[in-house]
């Protein structure tokens, strides 16, 4: 009997076309806004037009008069039920509907529930709110001033705008390294505020059934089980009576991890009206009030020996979290995994000091396509590396090669205590240098300059920690960061698989089935995958931080293996031999020494329901919880070549080479799709995509006319390469990948542009590198800061 061809059954390594596409290309996806329930009402939210003000009065009487209005809610409505404030996923509190003050422009002030959204909007216009405006803070430097107004006067014992100080590393040893250094390289910069901005905004449909006491909420959530736990805590409803369903999500990128006031208001609205209540944000509401990313200031220093060896690293970060500390970071790490910075380099000692501040802006700091602040960590790292190589007068690639962790050093303990376990960093660097034509670039650059053209090349290399937990170190609200899979094999050998993850476009319905096909030999087309319904899926922490394949994907493999172990017992029974005399090949058990005599996994499945051996539990299913022993550490080496127009400051990408080592690739087509998407977001942040604020706290970037996202026209093409170093601890050798490109990408673009213009003496231009900023740097030779407030008209 010929063995099964794994690629033909859609197993590991097959670029299997996506299962979910069958509905999406027909317009048959089912997103929250597509769902209509009988008797459903519609909710719209009134938001604050000002950034910081005391609420003197709210008059809703005229809104109640609008025909078709069923309910008008304010902070008082919430407060009467102890719901005016809710806990965040970062041990802070957040206002649901404002009672005392508004603390950022766009904060939720009132809600109208009506027969349709048009009527609800009409009624919003009739609500009269009287504000007494207060001084506004739009950056953390202002927030530190002793004269700064106290933003969070609602919190007991909060006497300043500081949220936290967080410190890691060996300060004394690092200070010594700096004292002994030949060269100290220093760079200060700002990673600007940005918004993940999936095209689909956030929304929910809450459906409370008084007869059964059951609350069902359809919700745009990347982590529905966390929401269920939080709703149980906040609304004091029993957890078994809460069902959170995340249907198809129109993108997430971290924006759909936090729990937003709108969800909670819609839940109370449904309880009060006894009708289903739908709330779907418009784009401005999404951009102004939900999970921003980034907004961190860096003071970075490297202690260097003349020959290029890094002796020590010092980083001081100041982050702007907006009015509520409402991002989702693992409990122990206030500034996420910022201390994963420099993990790919062999550095004897390092020290990181991080401070977080409240400002009058929407809540920030979500992991925007990023494993908890890793995007900032790696951007800072690669900008510091770039500046240091220049300070030493060394070649960018050779400076990196000299300091990268070598293949023979794994497992390697970083200066901040992470354990990186695998990689071929030097090889990735070589592949990229070859592909971009690195060796001839300097000559090319010089010749171009003689013709008045400014060329630049930028490198970004990094390894990042993807796939939290392990549970020893990683939890959110005390819930450990494991994940889960439940696999049921039916009697005909077909199967259903459910996991605790939640796809937002990553293609889980396709790739999870491929893992089962790899482990059991059941064709991927015979396996249906479901996620996102807390009543049916096993408990999991959801999809963000590139954790699905490292954690839930591993759980899928483990569940499959446990099923194979049980099927082996059934096979022994069917073949009438002892279990020890059985061998496995893909999809089939056979008698050792007689390969012809065997039974397929499908035979075993049928027998599990119709002919099981005595004493064996019937059925063929398993639920596995997987707690990873370590994070996974993919590596990226990115090379970007640009041309800058000296007369306008406009820059074009001439070539971009991305070398990714994410371990074993389950579906190469999907992996490449993730990398290209991530690179585009990196390009966006480097080039145009940011949200800033004026001195009054007005959000500049509250719609797609002001918040620029790249289109098909500007977005460059990307040349992708792969190196494969399997993860030593993951059951199928895979590492996370969804965010590598967003994390490593921005520095490649910025370093390239800086390389083209730094002959003028400029050391840094803050992202985004808009033409006016690049032009200013070229004209003045001085750094260009992007810190708000900006001038507005």
């Amino acid at each position: 009997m010929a063995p099964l061809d794994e690629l033909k059954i859609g197993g590991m390594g097959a670029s299997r076309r996506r299962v979910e596409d069958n509905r999406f290309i027909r317009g048959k996806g089912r997103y929250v806004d597509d769902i209509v329930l009988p008797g459903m009402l519609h909710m719209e939210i009134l938001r604050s037009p000002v950034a910081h003000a005391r609420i003197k009065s709210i008059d809703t009487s005229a809104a109640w008069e609008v025909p078709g209005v069923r309910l008008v809610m304010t902070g008082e409505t919430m407060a009467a039920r102890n719901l005016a404030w809710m806990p965040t996923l970062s041990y802070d509190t957040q206002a649901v509907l404002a009672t005392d003050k508004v603390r950022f422009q766009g904060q939720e002030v009132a809600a109208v529930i009506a027969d349709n959204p048009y009527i609800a909007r009409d009624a919003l216009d009739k609500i009269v709110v009287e504000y007494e405006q207060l001084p506004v803070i739009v950056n953390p430097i202002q927030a530190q001033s002793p004269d700064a107004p106290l933003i969070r006067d609602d919190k007991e014992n909060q006497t300043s705008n500081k949220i936290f100080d967080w410190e890691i590393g060996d300060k004394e040893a690092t200070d010594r390294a700096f004292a002994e250094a030949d060269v100290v390289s220093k760079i200060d910069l700002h990673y600007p505020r940005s918004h993940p901005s999936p095209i689909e905004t956030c929304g929910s449909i809450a459906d409370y059934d008084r007869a059964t006491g059951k609350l069902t909420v359809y919700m745009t959530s990347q982590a529905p089980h966390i929401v269920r736990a939080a709703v149980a805590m906040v609304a004091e409803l029993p957890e078994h009576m809460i069902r959170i369903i995340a249907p198809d999500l129109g993108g997430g990128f971290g924006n759909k991890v936090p729990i937003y006031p709108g969800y909670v208001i819609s839940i109370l609205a449904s309880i009060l009206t006894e009708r289903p209540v739908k709330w779907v944000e418009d784009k401005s509401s999404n951009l102004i009030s939900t999970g921003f990313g980034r907004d961190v200031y860096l003071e970075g220093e490297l202690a260097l020996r003349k020959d290029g060896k890094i002796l020590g690293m010092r980083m001081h970060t100041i982050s702007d979290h907006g009015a509520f500390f409402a991002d989702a970071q693992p409990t122990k790490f206030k500034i996420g995994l910022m201390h994963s910075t420099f993990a790919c380099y062999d550095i004897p000692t390092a020290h990181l000091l991080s401070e977080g501040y409240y400002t009058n802006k929407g809540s920030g700091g979500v992991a925007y396509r990023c494993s908890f602040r890793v995007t900032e960590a790696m951007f800072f790292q690669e900008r510091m590396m770039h500046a240091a190589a220049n300070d030493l007068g060394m070649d960018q690639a050779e400076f990196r090669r000299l300091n990268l962790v070598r293949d023979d050093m794994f497992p390697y303990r970083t200066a901040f205590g992470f354990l990186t376990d695998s990689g071929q960093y030097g090889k990735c660097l070589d592949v990229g240098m070859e592909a971009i034509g690195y060796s001839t670039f300097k000559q090319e650059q010089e010749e171009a300059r003689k013709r008045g053209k400014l060329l630049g090349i930028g490198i970004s290399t990094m390894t990042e920690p993807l796939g939290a937990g392990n549970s020893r170190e990683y939890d959110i609200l005390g819930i450990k960061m494991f994940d889960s899979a439940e696999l049921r094999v039916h009697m005909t050998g077909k199967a259903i698989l459910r996991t605790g993850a939640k796809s937002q476009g990553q293609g889980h319905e396709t790739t999870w089935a491929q893992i089962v096909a790899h482990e059991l030999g059941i064709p991927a087309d015979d396996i249906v995958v479901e996620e996102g319904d807390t009543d049916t899926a096993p408990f999991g922490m959801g999809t963000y931080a590139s954790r699905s394949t490292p954690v839930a994907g591993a759980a899928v493999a483990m569940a499959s293996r446990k099923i194979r172990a049980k099927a082996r017992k059934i096979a022994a029974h069917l073949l009438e031999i002892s279990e020890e005399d059985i061998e496995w090949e893909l999809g089939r058990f056979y008698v050792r020494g007689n390969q012809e005599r065997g039974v397929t996994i499908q035979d075993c499945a049928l027998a599990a329901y119709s002919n099981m051996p005595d004493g064996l539990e019937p059925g063929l299913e398993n639920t596995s919880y997987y707690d990873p022993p370590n994070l996974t550490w993919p590596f990226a080496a990115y090379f970007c070549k640009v041309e800058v127009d000296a007369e306008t400051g406009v820059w074009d990408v001439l070539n971009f080479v991305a070398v990714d080592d994410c371990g074993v690739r389950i579906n190469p087509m999907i992996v490449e799709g993730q990398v290209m998407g991530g690179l585009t977001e990196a390009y966006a942040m480097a080039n145009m995509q940011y949200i800033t604020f004026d001195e009054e706290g007005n959000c500049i970037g509250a719609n797609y006319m002001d918040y620029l996202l790249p289109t098909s026209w500007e977005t460059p093409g990307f040349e992708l390469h792969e190196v494969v170093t399997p993860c030593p601890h993951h059951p199928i050798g895979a590492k996370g990948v969804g965010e590598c490109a967003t994390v490593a990408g921005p520095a490649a673009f910025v370093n390239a542009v800086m390389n083209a213009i730094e002959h003028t003496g400029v050391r840094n231009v803050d992202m985004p590198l808009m033409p006016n900023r690049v032009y200013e740097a070229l004209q003045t030779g001085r750094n260009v800061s992007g810190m708000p407030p900006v001038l507005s008209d």
Partner: protein
Amino acid sequence: MTSLFDEVQEAPAEGVEVRRVTVNVNGADKTVDVEPRLLLVHLLRQALQLTGTHSGCDTTSCGACTVLMDGRPVKSCTVLAVQANGREVETVEGLATASELHPIQEGFKEEHGLQCGFCTPGMMLSAKALLERNPDPTEDEVRWALSGNLCRCTGYQNIVKSVLWAAKKMREQNQEA
């Protein structure tokens, strides 16, 4: 054959005059009484339950709501339903026949031109309008034609490939015909 509801009517707000509009949607005339302010995207999604047309940005910027009106792409979030009166509108639901996908749909699946799927219907309709006037576009022509449709997942490279895949297949089909 008749059904219980051919026409779905939203109750107008008090004092609001409604207009009767007849729109040919995917080949069938639909007559609906609407408030003059009703947006085409809401007529399609709510009154006609064609939820494949998505509402993304409300400001004509993202293109998720793109449909073809008399063969030309329009963003249905900034077209009033009354403006579609007497016109032909094609949505994503009109692309495939009962038995066969449109080559553009096949192309998007074949070349991994979508991830979350939210921008996909609008993207495919913009592509259809392009291929109907230019059956053999260059990569740049595809990129220009799709530049009114934003995608946050794919980076566009595979979307461009999808459209070129479809163009080739459509040309081959036309040669056979």
